């Protein structure tokens, strides 16, 4: 389970590196960053191969890594029928997902 953390960090570092290499190979173009982003847009932009999109996707993977770890833990506790901890981890997970959508409010 802890290995998922390593995979997440390496994947996001690789995406960042790819973004930087593409930026360099394109002659360091000046990049524009959208003012407000939401998660769905980031994924969409990343798949168009846009420079900032790729780096943003790396950032998103990195943020998702510990969130994924919490999600896995909630399943683990539920399988163990450890309901108190299943509720606690789901509460933490809920707050983490709220934070990802808080942009519109904040």
């Amino acid at each position, binding site marked *: *389970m802890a290995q998922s953390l390593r995979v997440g960090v390496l994947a996001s570092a690789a995406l960042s590196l790819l973004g930087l290499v593409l930026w360099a190979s394109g002659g360091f173009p000046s990049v524009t960053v959208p003012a407000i982003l939401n998660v769905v847009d980031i994924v969409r932009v990343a798949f168009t191969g846009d420079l900032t999109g790729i780096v943003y996707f790396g950032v998103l993977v990195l943020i998702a890594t*510990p969130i994924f770890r919490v999600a896995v833990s909630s399943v683990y506790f539920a399988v163990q029928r450890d309901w108190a901890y299943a509720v606690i981890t789901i509460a933490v997970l809920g707050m983490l997902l709220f934070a990802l959508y808080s942009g519109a409010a904040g």
Partner: protein
Amino acid sequence: MLVVTPIEVLSIFLMSILAGLVGAVFGLGGGILIIPFLTLVEGVPLPFAVGASIISVIATSSASAATYVQDRLTNLRLGMFLEVGTVLGAITGALVAAFLDPGVLLVLFGILLIYTSAIMIAGRKVDSPSGVVPDRVSRNLRLGGEYFDPATGVTNRYEVTNTLKTLAISAISGVVSGLLGVGGGIIGVPTMNLLSKVPVKVASATSNFMIGVTAAASSSVYLVRGDVQPFLVAPLMIGVVIGAAVGTRLLRRTPPLRIKLLLAILLVAVSIAMILKGFFPEIVL
């Protein structure tokens, strides 16, 4: 919108290797060094510096939490329970940060730096508790655990106490993390060890795991607010991970007091610069 030049990206990359290395050797989070560098040297606006730093905190925390030893020491139950506090605090801190004057945050950061250097010189007080009686919350939630100590070859059982006080302080450390873009381990580890009576190895492994989750909460807020600038974050993230990996492998023993003292003096100097910048925002070194 921030325009970043290739030279800036390169210098951020090199600096973050150094920050990751120094952080790993001295047991500090990278943010403590990265934010002053970005704001004072590169002249990056504070929200962007905090947004970049908090992302790199996830990277360093996750990378080291993934090691076998750290994973075995982590008390997952205790971590998850305290994260209710840290995550709530982090989201609050990150949301409130947008409404605070950057000068206030810079001064707060300066104070955090002074606290950090004081702890570095004085040495962290370590409790090796025994015969701890768990409180009611701890008993009901079975927060206690056991860990294998490779040094002695013995598996030790431990109990957790002062649970609700520790939860409250965790929430405060979450606010600090969300406001200032640091991990908060400097608050979390002594709280778990001295107040909750958790063995220090377990406390630091559990805190390190928690930091990643806490930072994920606040960085989500910074991300969707647009304070995460891709070309600040990319070199920073790669550099910090490289630096931390090199740091943990190269130097296993604690650095001599003289070196600690030098770094502490440097941190105090940096904190004065940060506080001055809080009052005179135009200062760039």
